[in-house]
């Protein structure tokens, strides 16, 4: 009885979560320009999305911002985690809570604060004839900023588990600090670095609010493109592209998931 009830409940939540996704995937096969009516099955949107330059450039921007912001925030996060780890508890708490602000703060506040910064900077620089152009650069800075706490918090716990003695042993045996770090510390924290990178990439890929406030006219990511298209009606190509992205992520997850499935067990053992 109890088992049946929990099955029903799981099923209900499952439907709630997947109904919108089923609808979107269905739209991508709808042979009709509007989502108001069903015009039969078609695959033409999957072909036409590649010919739609606006969508392709939005896709390019989205992927480029996601890859670069994930790379840079992982690197900054790694540096931050290493130096935070060597600080005393009080300083660490202060700096960590500052880095965490974009994670706990409302996205709209982070977005407008960055927008005001870039406007203010533009006014300041205009005295010397320089300008701040809202577009790729400003969006990238915004994404790195909100990704940073996630990469730091992915790497920090791994770093804390590293045994300092092995690193010091490597130094005693004549390794340079860089070599010892690369050969002794890095392999131990690699899983944290990778999961930080993946988290940052995902968050950046899906971000709308920060991009909305830091982008300029003429620069669009997929999310901002969808937002402006909503009023006139979303182009069916967008459903096709999103379905394709969704499915590729699923496939990637399955491939990586197999290799990774052993990791949580290791994790638990060390805690």
């Amino acid at each position: 009885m109890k088992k049946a009830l929990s099955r029903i409940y799981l099923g209900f939540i499952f439907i709630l979560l997947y109904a919108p996704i089923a609808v979107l995937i269905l739209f991508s096969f709808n042979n009709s320009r509007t989502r108001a009516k069903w015009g039969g099955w078609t695959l033409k949107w999957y072909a036409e999305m590649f010919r739609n330059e606006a969508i392709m450039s939005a896709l390019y921007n989205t992927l480029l911002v996601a890859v670069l912001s994930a790379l840079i925030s992982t690197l900054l996060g790694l540096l931050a985690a290493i130096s935070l780890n060597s600080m005393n508890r009080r300083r660490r708490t202060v700096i960590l809570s500052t880095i965490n602000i974009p994670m706990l703060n409302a996205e709209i506040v982070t977005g407008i604060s960055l927008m005001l910064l870039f406007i203010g900077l533009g006014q300041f620089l205009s005295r010397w004839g320089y300008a701040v152009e809202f577009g790729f650069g400003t969006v990238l800075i915004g994404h790195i900023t909100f990704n940073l706490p996630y990469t730091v918090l992915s790497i920090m716990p791994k770093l804390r588990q590293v045994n300092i003695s092995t690193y010091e042993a490597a130094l005693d045996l004549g390794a340079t600090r860089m070599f010892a770090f690369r050969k002794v510390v890095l392999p131990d924290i690699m899983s944290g670095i990778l999961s930080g990178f993946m988290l940052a990439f995902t968050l950046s890929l899906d971000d709308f609010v920060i991009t909305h406030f830091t982008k300029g006219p003429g620069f669009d990511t997929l999310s901002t493109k969808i937002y402006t298209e909503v009023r006139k009606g979303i182009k069916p190509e967008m459903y096709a592209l999103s379905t394709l992205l969704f499915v590729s992520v699923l496939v990637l997850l399955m491939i990586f998931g197999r290799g990774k499935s052993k990791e949580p067990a290791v994790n638990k053992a060390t805690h």
Partner: protein
Amino acid sequence: MKRRNPLLSGPYLIWTAAFIIIPLLMIVYYGLTDSTGAFTWSNVAQMGTPERMKALVLSLILSLFATAVCLIMAYPLALILTNMKVGATGFIVTIFIIPMWMNSLLRILAWQTLLERNGVINQILGFLHLPKLYLINTPYAIALGMIYDFLPFMLLPIYNALEKIDQNVVNAAYDLGANKFQTFWKVIFPLTIPGVISGITMVFVPALTTFVISDFLGGSKVLLIGNVIEQQFTQVGNWNVGSGLSLVLMIFILISMAVMQHYDNGDAEGIVL
């Protein structure tokens, strides 16, 4: 690793100062000055107009409601998931994360189609000869969108907290004669409070400040405080008033952060799932 690396702390300290602290100070500056740069409280006081107060109160009601429903839905769900066979949990938890890989704007947009007058839900209701539901462009649709969008944020911290509970503690409670309800109420639930609190803030703050969900599911008929602020920046172009209103919003965010800090015993990693 304990070894001082003073040079390493440079880049992210500069980054934090330039792109986190200074921007927030800019909001304070714009919010407390007029267009000539003179100090004023009038931007903050702009929140007092009936239309904006209505938006703020509606945002508070809807976000508190959505947070409560998320908690009520997620807790039993997390319990069910923790009680499943160990091998299956990873897979099942993934199932609740997978939807987040579809563009979030499109997912909210899909609810338009589901909730519309002649939408999928009403067609099913019609087929079953049940009365139609008129949900789209009402606050109910917005609350539903919030619950849908933020449920995983509530589920994951609670699930993590439940996962960490030592089974021996639970068994000890049973051995000492506690019944199921007592064990849950006196042992399991108190141990998950940090997870619950972090879930509450993870849902409450984005729900309170959203403008996308209300934009898509409320038509332009229902305004939340997020919409009011967004319009000040992108349509009206009055940054002083927009910043003033944001300062009021930030008070609520700070309260919820303070609550979280109070229950968070230095285990910052818990926040990130």
